[in-house]
């Protein structure tokens, strides 16, 4: 140990990890000038790995960016033994493609293999294949679409749901080649613009949330006749009559969830019969869909939530709030409590969690920055990247198959982001 401290001061360090490459628990004296690269080399050598694996190092929930000595000076930790957790390093995201849009893109989805679905403020849903060709373009809504989700898909035919400012959500059928795309049903319940729509895994049910503080539960069976009477609306009646033949069926909800006191900004399906929602009334609510009751309410004072996401194992709920933080709720705990963390420079508008890793997530903010986080490092983001040079707002994110799809003011950008293979 004395040999390592040949030059300059040294720091006592204990390494821990949850990766499959553990080091023996032992105190190392490491020169304070060492940085991530040196530490990574040290771990690699100590493990004797045949192919070097880059590691990132977390000190007290912070990614080690500078040298150890600088970290100690910043945090006033000179004497203590640092406990450093190392995780497998992830390559910084790389920009793959840019798909410009004329309008703001409010929602993106790359859940379908080979397709990027985008919903934009002109009421149009577009689909792009991987060579960035627009394959589908259907104007579903007369008003801006706020949210889009894929309900079910088989081969080339997909069922998507869209929520819009025109107070309805729609179930639409699209095919990959764009030959037969049409709206199947409009969902009528809400009296204010809809904020989000989501479908469960099997595609049997859809949830919609709206600014009028209610959440609608819908099944995805397309009725043969209108379930809801047509609105006695003067203006569009003539137009509608013209399109009478292939007019989408008007559909009513299966159930309604009422408990929020403000705008509901996001609703998500949890496990089988559960749903989560967050709203501007500073609450995150857990719903029992069978009984249509709210089973748990997590209240935080004065923090309107704009987006909600669940980690892939469903253990953690992450809610982005307008006070520029993301709240983390451990849902497995009996009384779920949250801690504010992941501080942003601007309003975080959207969250997407990694489809495979339980610890990774990306957030997009109004300052045009997409931040990649690891929940073990809540103080600083693991990496930050700027679509559209960081000048345009980011409104939507999706992360599937190693691709982060970013929708916002400037259209859509696709970034490649590696996911950490979860060893859990």
């Amino acid at each position, binding site marked *: 140990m004395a040999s390592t401290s040949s030059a300059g001061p040294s720091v006592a360090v204990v390494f821990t990890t949850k990766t499959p490459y553990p080091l023996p628990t032992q105190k190392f004296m490491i020169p304070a000038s060492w940085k991530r690269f040196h530490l990574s080399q040290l771990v690699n050598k100590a493990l004797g790995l045949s192919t070097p694996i880059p590691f990132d190092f977390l000190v007290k929930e912070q990614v080690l960016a500078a040298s150890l000595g600088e970290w100690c000076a910043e945090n006033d930790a000179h004497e203590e033994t640092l406990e450093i957790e190392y995780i497998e390093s992830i390559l910084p995201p790389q920009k793959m493609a840019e798909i410009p849009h004329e309008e703001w893109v409010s929602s993106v989805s790359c859940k379908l293999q080979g397709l990027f679905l985008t919903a934009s403020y002109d009421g149009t849903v577009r689909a792009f294949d991987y060579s960035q060709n627009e394959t589908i373009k259907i104007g579903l809504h007369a008003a801006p679409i706020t949210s889009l989700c894929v309900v079910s898909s088989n081969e080339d035919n997909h069922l998507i749901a869209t929520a819009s400012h025109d107070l309805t959500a729609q179930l639409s059928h699209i095919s990959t080649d764009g030959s037969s795309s049409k709206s199947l049903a409009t969902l009528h319940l809400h009296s*204010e613009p809809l904020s989000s729509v989501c479908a469960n895994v099997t595609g049997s049910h859809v949830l919609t949330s709206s600014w009028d503080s209610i959440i609608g539960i819908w099944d995805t069976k397309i009725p043969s006749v209108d379930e809801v009477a047509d609105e006695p609306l003067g203006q569009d009646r003539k137009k509608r009559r013209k399109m009478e033949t292939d007019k989408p069926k008007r559909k009513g909800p299966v159930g309604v969830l009422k408990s929020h006191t403000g705008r509901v900004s996001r609703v998500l399906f949890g496990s089988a019969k559960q749903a989560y929602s967050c709203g501007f009334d500073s609450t995150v609510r857990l719903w029992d869909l069978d009984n249509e009751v709210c089973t748990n309410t997590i209240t935080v004072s004065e923090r*309107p939530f704009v987006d909600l996401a669940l980690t892939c194992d469903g253990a953690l709920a992450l809610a982005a709030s307008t006070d520029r933080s993301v709240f983390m709720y451990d849902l497995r705990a009996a009384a779920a409590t949250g801690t504010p963390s992941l501080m942003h420079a601007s309003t975080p508008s959207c969250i997407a969690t990694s489809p495979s890793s339980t610890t990774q997530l990306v957030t997009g903010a109004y300052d045009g920055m997409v931040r990649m986080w690891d929940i073990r490092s809540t103080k600083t983001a693991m990496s930050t990247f700027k679509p559209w040079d960081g000048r345009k707002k980011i409104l939507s994110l999706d992360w599937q198959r190693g691709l982060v799809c970013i929708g916002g003011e400037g259209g859509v950008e696709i970034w490649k982001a590696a996911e950490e293979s979860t060893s859990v």
Partner: protein
Amino acid sequence: MHSDEEGDDEAESDGDVEEFPEIDVGSDSDGDSEFNSDNVEGDLDEEEVDEEEESDSDAESLHVFPRAKTVTSDITGQPKRVYPEIEPDYDSDSSTEEAPNRVGNVPMHWYDDLPHIGYDMDGKRVLRPARGDELDKFLATVEDPSAWTSAFDKNAQTDKPLSAEELDIIKRLYDHENPDGNYDPYEPTVEWFTSQVEVMPLSAAPEPKRRWIPSKWEKKKVMKILRAIRAGRIVPNKPKTSSKRTQLYDIWKSDASTTLAPALPAPKPKLPTNAESYNPPEEYLPTDQERKEWEDKDAEDRERDYLPQKYSSLRLVPGYDRFIKERFSRQLDLYLAPRIQRAKLNIDPKSLIPKLPSPNSLRPFPTYKSLTFSHPSSYARCLSVHPSGTWVVSGDDNGIVSLWEINVGREVKRWKFSGKIGAVEWCPRTDVCYFVVGIEETLHFVIPPNLPAAVYELTYKLLAPATLPPAPETPSPIKWTTASSSKWTIDTPLLSIQLSSGSGLPRQIAWHRKGDYLSTVSSGAQGGVWIHQITRRHSQAPFKKIRGDIQLVRFHPTKPHFFVATQQYVRIYNLAEQTLLKTLMPGIKWISSMDIHASGDHVIVGGYDRKLCWFDLDLSSKPYKVLRYHSRAIRSLQFHPTYPLFASSSDDGTIQIFHSRVFSDLMTDPLIVPLKILRGHENKEGLGVLQVKWCPNQPWLVSGGADGAVNVWCS
């Protein structure tokens, strides 16, 4: 004396008597020296000495003792020794004794029944003297002048006249004097011992032993005390209680300076300036003209009493010619200067800062710019936030009104009007949804898109009723026109109110809280205040004539009161009774903005002269508090409808957020805490932030600026 006499009587030959002359003889040789040294002996000894001297003279010739003769007794026939009669002379002890009776000190009544009263020296009977009766006594007192000085002699059983000495003694005793006539109370002191104490008396006496052996007596005494202490009979040194001791106090405790002014410090002499340096910088040196001017002036008129001079080194500086004069004037200063004591305030500056709660404890309030909606190349002059807090309409000088969502900032709909947009306001009603746009001489009523069917229906019916209400009796110059249903689209206003020509741009649109009345203030010459009623489609001017140029109007949130701000005053009218209730005098030269607290009891007024006045309507017509925090004119003010906040915006490009807690009890003053200055708007042509509006149900602020940006500030 008596004992001597008795001895003499009983024993004829005494040993003592025989030895007597021998002692005298022995002491003969050094009689004189003895005499001197033994002065202490009394008078008696002197007498003895006298006797001795006499006996000395004829020691051998004279036989002292009487010689007995042996005679044959006549009676018995036996020889007996007869002593000669005692001749009491100076040899005898009782030579001076005259008294013949030698009975001694026995009670004389023993001799009462006897003819004699005792025996004389020779043992012969002393016969009782004859005593006269009482009459004789009386006669004696009359005849004998010395009778009263005689006393009864017990021994002689007769009256004896007192001698002159005795009388003298009696007299002295009466006078409380010393009975001895020879006694001189004033005789000079005989210094038996010297009164002067020698410091170190010389003594040849050896040091006594007691001086260096420990005293047994002292040891005994100490041991006694020790034993007593051990036995507990003596409690050693009881702790002295403070109460027993004399109370000590600090006589200097009270500050004497409170009554007595402290010595005044002398005024400080002025410190020398750069110009007084021996080597001042060039700019301090006077030019020739200045030098001449200085020399021409009288000494009293000179600005300074010296001319700066430059020397290249200190060595070259000559003697200071004005030294004496300067010292003298300094002395004059010290002597004549009025000594003003300037009370130096010894106040901690922190204590002067009012105790305000920390802004962190007053969260939430807007802290950062969440998003910006921009009106390119124009002023975002007016904006309004929908009562639900979701939509914002903003109008600019190019005639564009944009509807956008507060949380995303995406423009949903845009309307184009001709000319500047003067004011935009949402209708406060929740069952209908429309907003009013004020442009040059016209008000337009616009319905936003994507309304629920019921709300849309109601709004449409309200603005374009199927049957028009009856026209008012008096024709009004204000024309209400509804777009025909066939022509109308959502892009055009459904209802328009044509204000009187020449009224100019509506400066402000103020809604009554119920959403039926709205009031407009026009800026033009023919303008003024109009109150429009939507349901009756009727407009009226509440004031026929009003003093001053009306800047703003407001409806009271609860009462039928109407606030009218002219350039300098705010007048409060009761609309129901049509009376003037109150005039507020903010002391602002030109009022720019005004808002009323939701409770209706507090008003804030802002002015172009940077002042912000808070009025408590219950208190007075003068401001409760005047805040001058902006560096440029205040443009807009608004109270938050639900949170205890208000914001003010100014031409300096900043928005200031204040916490304003209003208490329901009348005793507590409103709490106003400055919270945050929001910067982010750019100044353009001297204009800054033109309007601020709160989001009704969130602590969010929307601000429109001259830079064309409408910013949303989130907590």
